[in-house]
């Protein structure tokens, strides 16, 4: 039977150099990250090359993407959040495009490795810390001190709030990673049933239509999940960045 997790294997194409004793290799993961960035850049540059008042297809896609992310930021953070637009838009487009590319058979899904999503989540986490302290100074610590709490439970609450804050990058990264991993494994397993049943002769072919139909349905679901998870990652980024700008209670 086809190995359902073989698709997540990282393959070294060639070695770029060494840092300490670690090989820095160009892998299939890096290749697909490059493809995602390239496709996004091509879409955006191509759309804005021939700007028209009445947008064509490409320009419509680019404008839709812009409006979508800009509205999300305005609704979550407010107008002041637009300074984070480049970061949020890059994250959204990178995750969305890499997820969509990964859905095409034989392609590699970048977000199915937790190290990738953890790096993205830590980027947001560090941005929140740096921006929070830069904009608010020590008032940023107000984030951990809720108002209206009796003084004798306050130390406990502060500890819990700090832990809750530290757990953000974990849940932020695990959600995207686990959704992509589970979805792609499910797809592979059901698609594997088709070939297994197909080997049984005529009755097997009849039986194989069932998992085949399910594979088609699951592909549609995965398309939704690929978009939804990119959106969820984006909106959580906005919610976290909002804390950096407004840590008060």
């Amino acid at each position, binding site marked *: 039977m086809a190995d359902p997790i073989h698709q997540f294997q990282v393959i070294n194409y060639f070695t770029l150099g060494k840092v300490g004793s670690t090989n820095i290799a160009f892998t299939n993961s890096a290749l697909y990250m490059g493809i995602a960035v390239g496709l996004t850049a091509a879409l955006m540059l191509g759309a804005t090359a021939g700007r028209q008042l009445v947008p064509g297809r490409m320009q419509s896609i680019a404008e839709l993407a812009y409006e979508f992310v800009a509205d999300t930021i305005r609704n979550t953070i407010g107008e002041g959040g637009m300074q984070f637009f480049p970061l949020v838009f890059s994250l959204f487009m990178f995750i969305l495009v890499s997820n969509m590319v990964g859905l095409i058979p034989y392609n590699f899904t970048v977000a199915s490795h937790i190290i990738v999503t953890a790096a993205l989540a830590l980027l947001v986490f560090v941005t929140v810390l740096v921006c929070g302290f830069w904009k608010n100074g020590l008032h940023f610590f107000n984030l951990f001190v809720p108002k209206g709490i009796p003084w004798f439970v306050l130390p*406990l609450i502060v500890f819990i*709030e700090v832990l809750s804050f530290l*757990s953000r990058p*974990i849940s932020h990264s695990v959600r995207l990673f*686990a959704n992509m991993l589970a979805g792609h494994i499910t797809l592979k397993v059901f698609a594997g049933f088709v070939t297994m049943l197909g080997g049984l002769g005529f009755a097997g072919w009849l039986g194989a239509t069932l998992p085949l139909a399910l594979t088609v349905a699951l592909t549609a679901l995965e398309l939704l999940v690929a978009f939804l998870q990119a959106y*969820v990652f984006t909106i959580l980024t906005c919610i976290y960045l909002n804390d950096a700008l*407004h840590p*008060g209670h």
Partner: protein
Amino acid sequence: MADNAHDGNDPTRRQTDEAALSARLRRLGDQLDRHGPSDPSETDRGRPTADASGYARGFRLSSELVAGVLVGAGIGWALDRVLGISPWGLIIFLMLGFAAGVLNVMRTAGVAPERDAGIPPRNN
């Protein structure tokens, strides 16, 4: 319009109509109330549509809880290693982490107030 004229001429009938209408409205209101609180999209206005499907919502909640417990366990274990107070760091921080996880889940579900409850509510 003919109905209006007719009702206007007959005050007693209009009153009974209004009584029946308000009774129906009250019944509808009761039914909506019964549905309302259980509908999550009504209650968590502070956190806009991060969970568009039940599957995504359930996954979010569980990952929030697990993340809290993991962070608590990690910090407790590290403190044990560094300070040599095993097993007290792990015990205390595991419990604190569990509390943080529950807090995360309640915030995500919109049961507990947001961190930024002080700023005016944003419209979605």
